[in-house]
């Protein structure tokens, strides 16, 4: 964990750390289990099993709704998937958002929107992963996508959003602990983007990144990546070389 932080060069503890594979619930019990795992092979193997179980559960949550897709079309399938993740969805021409109830069941009225395109999806705080985006890549008229606070959305997942290049206008990846400036660089594939929320991301030099994002997406409003109060404009990170001589005869 410390090594990953050192690689990214985080300065302060402001940003939530990315979820450690041994679970985001770092209670006293799991900390003790980890320490035991350093001493006993059996505990280490059990920790490995627990991690595999967690991953299997995550994969099942992000399954591809291909059956519903073949029956009712990709819009309905995307809506069903979003609702089963605990998110909300809005169809074209509708004012209200559709979501599952507190028990996780969604009403079958969504099936009537067979040919109506989905225009807005709200998946904030859900367990969406790269594989879960399989359910959304066929949407052609998606305008608003909210992925804030998703702990498993990373740079690879952002790289898949290029399919919404023709329609996406609002995107939020705020507070996603695994998104870095490398994933944000792929957002230039969304030229119609008008509003991008990147608050609470774990990046070095947020001020510089904000300037670069504004240059990359000139018509887009970038929210959330402010330079910290009182931070002097820092020199761009050197590559660890002493000041070299300039190129001769240039």
């Amino acid at each position, binding site marked *: *964990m*410390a*090594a*990953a932080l050192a*690689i*990214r060069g985080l300065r302060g503890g402001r940003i939530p750390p*990315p979820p*450690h*594979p*041994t679970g985001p619930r770092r209670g006293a019990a799991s900390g003790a289990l*980890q320490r035991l*795992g*350093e001493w006993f092979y059996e505990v*280490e193997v059990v*920790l*490995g099993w627990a*991690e595999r179980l967690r*991953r299997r559960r995550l994969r099942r949550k992000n399954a591809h709704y291909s059956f519903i897709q073949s029956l009712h079309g990709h819009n309905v399938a995307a809506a069903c998937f979003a609702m089963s993740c605990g998110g909300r969805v809005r169809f074209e021409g509708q004012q209200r958002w559709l979501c599952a109830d507190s028990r996780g069941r969604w009403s079958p009225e969504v099936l009537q929107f067979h040919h109506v395109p989905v225009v807005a999806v709200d998946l904030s705080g859900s367990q969406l992963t*790269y594989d879960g985006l399989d359910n959304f890549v066929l949407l052609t008229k998606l305008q608003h996508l909210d992925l804030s606070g998703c702990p498993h959305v990373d*740079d*690879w997942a*952002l*790289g*898949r959003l*290029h399919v919404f290049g023709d329609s996406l206008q609002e995107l939020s990846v705020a507070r996603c602990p695994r998104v870095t*400036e*490398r*994933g*944000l*660089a*792929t957002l*230039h*594939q969304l030229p119609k983007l008008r509003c991008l929320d990147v608050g609470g991301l774990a990046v*070095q*030099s947020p001020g*510089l*990144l904000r300037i*670069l*994002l504004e*240059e*990359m997406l000139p018509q887009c409003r970038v929210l959330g990546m402010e330079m910290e109060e009182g931070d002097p404009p820092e020199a*761009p*990170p050197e*590559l660890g*070389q002493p000041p*070299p*001589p*300039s*190129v001769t*005869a*240039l």
Partner: protein
Amino acid sequence: MLRAVRGGRAVWAPRGGSGSGSGGAKLGRPLRTAAPQRSDIFRELGPRLSRLGQALRGQLPESEGAWNSLRPHQNSPPPPERADVVVVGGGVLGWSVAYWLKTLENRRHGMRVVVVERDPTYSQASTVLSVGGIRQQFSLPENIRLSLQSATFLRTINEHLWVPNEPPIDIQFQPSGYLFLASEHGAATLEAGVKVQREEGAKVALLSPSQLKAKFPWINTENVAVASYGLENEGWFDPWSLLNAFRRKAMSLGVYSCVGEVTSFVADTADNTPGMPRGVGRVKYVNVRLPDSPEQQPVSCAIVVAAAGAWTGKLLDSATAGLQGSLTLRRLPIEPRKRYVYVWHCPGGPGLETPFLIDTSGAYFRREGIAGNYLGSMSPPEGREPDVGNLEVDHDFFQEEVWPRLAHRVPAFRSLKQVKSAWAGYYDYNAFDQNGVLGPHPQLPNVFVLGGFSGHGLQQSPAAGRVAAELLLHGSCAAVDVGRLAPGRLWGSEPLLEAAIV
């Protein structure tokens, strides 16, 4: 007592007596011409003891710099006498094969795999000196499939290579894609390549010059007929993290890692084994020379994996030099070729969206970080290859060949401020057809050759390692049919050419 003394003052001071430690007769009152010496001794006692403690701890056998006369090879143990598979070469391909062999073996600890690496600092290894790009834009379906599977592996790297109690692995992948530019001369090849890539499932877009200019306004589209842009699973990452991740996971699965140089093979040939057909040999022992010593350790093994990168050809030549009696080994055309990489700073250069751009002339560059640094180079034209004896950088090559071409393509680079640094590395170049070699050597059936990837070894290493392990364990590979990459083609007449070699 020590803690009190470190404070600088003795908690208890003996009453009377002079400062000198002579003991002797007690005086009536202390002679105080200077500060009492006894408290000096105590004041320095604490720091002296802690320095002594540090010096002693540094000498303990477990510490880094200690030399123990009884166990001089403690930090780099010699290889075991018997092993099942010896992997020669500890680069990313070698460790990938070792990892997959241990992952795919049927029974836990069923195989003893030893990885022998000559240089633990990796000062000349192609892996760590690589620019670290991964792309699917090849013209050969095998290459595309290997790259795609490697990209999937890298995306799910924590599922495969995570070791409990370690932080999650971060290879710092930047999914910015590759952009190949083609003039009219190469447009047909590029389009044919894109067709094959799409059939294999890679997501590649073809761009016309106007679309290119709209997407990347800093490009000068003169002489560009068409461009292909990778949309997903393409970009660059940190090779050192991948190598370390493979190594750590493989060692946690029980792979032995040794420092040494493989000098020769001891093989059964027709000379010393009755019934052996002529022209074929079977390696029984691998002689490993230990570092800084003339001592050789013979390791008996069933399979040798020659994954020595750029020196695979040299390894097989020198290792089989003694067998030339009945077994004239044909030379493996895998050799090192030196390539330079230059890093420069250009504040007004292309922005955050910069892909890995490969120009019509072969020059390439990519962004490094977000601070306006770029790195790039060009492969020298045929016939003007630099000398491979050392890794010295030729800065004139940048001035005369690379910079004019890049400045023509990206006008912002004309005001290039300075070349910050440069380095050189070796391609493990397959002089026959610049494609990977994967398969058993036709004359030494238990030597598995894995190399010659000519610049795309790192990006194909996870999948190539898996294919190699499956070929060794199961005899066939279900995922990718790599029959065409077998070493037998190297001495034939039909090179398996790859169009998109950078």
